[in-house]
């Protein structure tokens, strides 16, 4: 017979708060992103941050006061580029309170600073020209919540598949946990037992509080004798179960029930209030707990490099349906064509696409564009051509279970520069669409353009329309400004505003449309 024993570990929650927060943050290769979207610290906490530039361009890391428009701050440097260059692209701005050097590719720097005393969200950004739009994140300063008090455990022995009614069982052993941190620490046995942890938890004010648990095997959390969240049964600590409940100000009875069948032993509990961050109540931290840092990625990125000729990527592209054809053109301008709607689905600039989602593991999921300023001119996977006597009315919308009637996908041909011309038929007409790029999509100078040429031959039905864009527009110097988060210009002959649609009466011949980023 093996005698069970619970051993205890000393390390108070209050001690944790004073510890230095140690982080590492990297730039991702060819993605114009940091690998960490969020850092979480406590007010006045010492921070040690190792910043590593894994990219092939120079980058820095600049921390600003809450509410700073970091993109505008970085852009403002261009007004006096020569002076900015002398400062190595670090803006002369009083809102900056900590920063790294401008690191060359594959350099590393360790920053030591103290987190601000004032709780809030402090943005961080790379201020090298053109990087601030996507290379950014947030340092969140929030105090930690209080830990448990007067924590006791009761150990029960038994072989269960689900949590038993512990109130009807006799504890095998009971005791006090001096460090008030939930932990199942076992020296010489590992299977077939249960533990009930009881203690007091102080709610600093009346309001909602969110509780989190995870365990291997089952667990259940009760506050003031009422079940809050349960994760019963035999299972690994895969999920974190959570629930928010209202609490009155003051002390509450905390009870966490746990049982172990066999295999791994894990138990995690945490809580979060409206003015304090996620605070663990257990020694063990679940790998997915939302404290500390938030990483950006699942797999190491596989960005597809576009160098001298267009690169094609057919796969599940987010926003381009299930028959998406991505094309990255030299010069940082990209598009996704849909072989489902026979239409331009997306346009974006900067980097083309990251293949890591599809080229790792089983390759599931839809991959969003890798660059920025992603435009979806006419909505999700909708056709350009439509027969209607009311061009201001709604266009057909995507039904994932069906193909659009009247359209037939024919394929694409590459020209001498290996730029594709997409071919399809609609009704009795044959259509070819080709694209050219002008300017540099990586430069926010208002000169980056995508020029779309549509050749229609054959017979079109009466009342056939071709839609270029939908949304809110205004006429501007012979073009149309498409408003929205990413405003852009459309220029073409014969275009009309029809309600929320920008349309051209469709007829055989050639149309040319220019899409232009205004900055």
């Amino acid at each position, binding site marked *: 017979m093996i005698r069970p024993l619970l051993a205890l570990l000393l390390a108070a929650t209050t001690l944790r708060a004073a510890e230095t927060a140690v982080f590492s943050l990297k730039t991702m290769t060819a993605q114009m992103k940091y690998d960490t979207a969020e850092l979480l610290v406590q007010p006045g906490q010492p921070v040690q941050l190792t910043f590593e530039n894994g990219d092939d361009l120079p980058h820095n890391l600049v921390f600003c006061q809450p509410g700073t428009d970091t993109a505008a701050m970085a852009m403002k440097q261009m007004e006096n580029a020569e002076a900015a260059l002398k400062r190595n692209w670090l803006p002369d701005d009083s809102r900056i309170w900590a920063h790294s050097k401008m690191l060359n590719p594959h350099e590393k720097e360790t920053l030591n600073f103290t987190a601000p005393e004032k709780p809030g969200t402090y943005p961080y950004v790379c201020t090298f020209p053109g990087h601030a739009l996507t290379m950014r994140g947030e340092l969140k300063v929030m105090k930690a919540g209080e830990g448990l008090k007067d924590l006791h455990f009761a150990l029960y022995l038994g072989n269960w598949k689900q949590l038993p009614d512990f109130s009807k069982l006799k504890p095998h052993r009971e005791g006090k946990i001096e460090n008030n941190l939930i932990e199942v620490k076992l020296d010489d046995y590992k299977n077939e037992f249960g533990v009930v942890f009881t203690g007091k938890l102080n709610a600093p004010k009346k309001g909602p509080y969110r509780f989190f648990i995870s365990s291997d095997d089952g667990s259940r959390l009760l506050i003031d004798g009422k079940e809050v969240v349960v994760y019963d049964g035999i299972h690994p600590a895969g999920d974190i179960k959570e629930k928010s409940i209202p609490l009155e100000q003051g002390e509450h009875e905390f009870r966490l029930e746990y049982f172990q069948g066999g295999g791994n032993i894990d138990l995690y509990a945490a809580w979060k209030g409206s003015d304090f961050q996620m605070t663990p109540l257990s020694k063990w931290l679940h790998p997915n707990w939302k404290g500390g840092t938030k990483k950006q990625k699942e797999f190491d990125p596989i960005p597809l490099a576009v160098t001298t000729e267009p690169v094609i990527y*057919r796969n599940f592209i987010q926003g381009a349906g299930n028959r998406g054809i991505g094309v990255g053109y030299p010069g940082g301008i990209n598009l996704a064509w849909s072989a489902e709607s026979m239409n331009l689905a997306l346009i974006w600039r900067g980097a083309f696409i990251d*293949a890591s989602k599809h*080229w*790792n593991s089983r390759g*599931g999921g*839809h991959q969003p564009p890798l660059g920025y300023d992603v435009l979806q001119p006419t909505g999700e996977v909708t056709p350009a051509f439509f027969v209607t006597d009311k061009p201001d009315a709604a266009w057909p919308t995507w039904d*994932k*279970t069906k193909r659009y009637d009247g359209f037939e996908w024919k394929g694409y*041909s*590459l020209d001498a520069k290996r730029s594709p011309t997409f071919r399809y038929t609609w009704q009795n007409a044959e259509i070819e669409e080709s694209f050219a790029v002008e300017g540099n999509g990586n430069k926010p100078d208002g000169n980056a353009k995508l020029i779309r040429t549509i050749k229609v031959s054959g017979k079109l039905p009466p009342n056939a329309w071709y839609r270029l864009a939908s949304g809110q527009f205004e006429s501007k110097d012979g073009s149309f400004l498409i408003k929205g988060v990413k405003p852009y210009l459309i220029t073409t002959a014969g275009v009309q505003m029809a309600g929320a649609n920008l349309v051209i009466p469709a007829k055989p011949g050639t149309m040319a449309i220019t899409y232009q980023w205004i900055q």
Partner: protein
Amino acid sequence: MKRLFLFLALCAPIYAADPVEADFYKITTFETPKETALEVGSIDLLPDGKLIMGTRRGEIWIVSGAGSSDTSNVSYKLFASGLHEVLGIAYNPKDKNIYATTRYEITRLKDVDGDGRADVFDNFCDHWGVSGDYHEYAIGSHFDKAGDLWVTLCLTGSFNSNAEFRGWALRIKPDGKMVPTCSGIRSPGGLGFDADGETYYCDNQGPWHGSCTLQHLVPGSFQGHPGGNIWYDKAPNMGPRPIDPLPEAFSNGRNRKDKTPHVDPDRMVTERERIKQLLPPAVYLVHGKIGNSASAIICDLSAGKFGPFSKQLFVADQSHSNLSRVFLETVNGIKQGVVIPFRSGFASGLIGGRMDEEGRVFVGGSDRGWGARGGKPFCFEKCEWTGKTPFEVHEMHAKPDGFELTFTQPIDSTTAGDVKSYSMREFTYAYREEYGGDEVSEIIPQITAAKVAADGKSVRLTISPLTKGHIHELHLDGVKNAEGQALLHKVGYYTLNEIPTK
């Protein structure tokens, strides 16, 4: 003199090392292009001794010199890229174009300007659905004898068909017209043809499949998984939708009146009586023993250049990184036969494969998503006969009261004629909705006679009982050839869909 010969014969097995697979079939691993992960998904032959390969990363490569005995002669040229997982590739000698089967389309690729890179990508056929689920693979074939291409479409996940014709085998005619051909597909792994040009595919263990299988794609047939049968109204050529098999014969109080009480109702052999379109797997590729994830089907049409197994099939496995050998026969109009281990030790999970006219088997694949015994993330390899003939069971034929075995070498009539040299167990799998399944309904039959033919090349086993629908697992531990050597592979699994009457 006679005594001396006997002495030597007895000594031979003691002094010679036991033969191993590599003595007979050599595997050569090729270096692959540094700039990519060559996750081979499909291979076909080009007319000038070159190969064309499609990959999971959507590239198409032309390979030269892979047939050469000097591996430094191999070279690669990228023909096309950016396609959505090329799990079928076919060279068409009539129009000299390449046909690539991808997720949602068969693309016809042409090199119009002759620079060695494709510049026209025509949609040859895209008349099937894709819902965006990773599981919805499309596996394509080479051209069949009628000039058609075949496509098998994986279900959406393991149970459902959320997009048109998911869970079907389709034929694409030379003009691009699509013909729904078989229903009942679950998770196909490969498509291929036998020496007569009949079409087969491999399915994977899962719902309605206790094990991986090799299945005969007879037009009009239902291959067993009812998940895709919702599309029968879009396939009028297929006739009425088959009645559904019972999801679990004994669940929910279901209890079908059973005329043969000794046979459980959730069996393929029972449901065949009820569902007239249901075609049983030709061969169960016994789960965990033969493989775990069956893929490419390769027929030996080299007329002896790949050794003694002319016209037999070789089935690759992604998980076990191996090739197994299948001998098929037709009994009462149904294909059935035996699977025997053949060659293990490939470097990664095998997916695509093709034999050339010189009897060289080119294979490749990747372990991505499921893992493989080989250990490498991807590979491109060649398997060749060394010229030495292994001592193997050559063919296994069902007889009304047993089996007839032929061998690759003359047999020792003493051991081969002794019933104690053999053992057999019979089992099957439940035919049910639940994922996978155990070997069930085990029967240990009596081997009552082992009669060696006068020519010393075959044995006739008498078995009692033979069980229709069961896999007959035969061990031949005691059988020796005339030199006293044991078989290289001492086990075979025969799927007895039908018991012949003569």
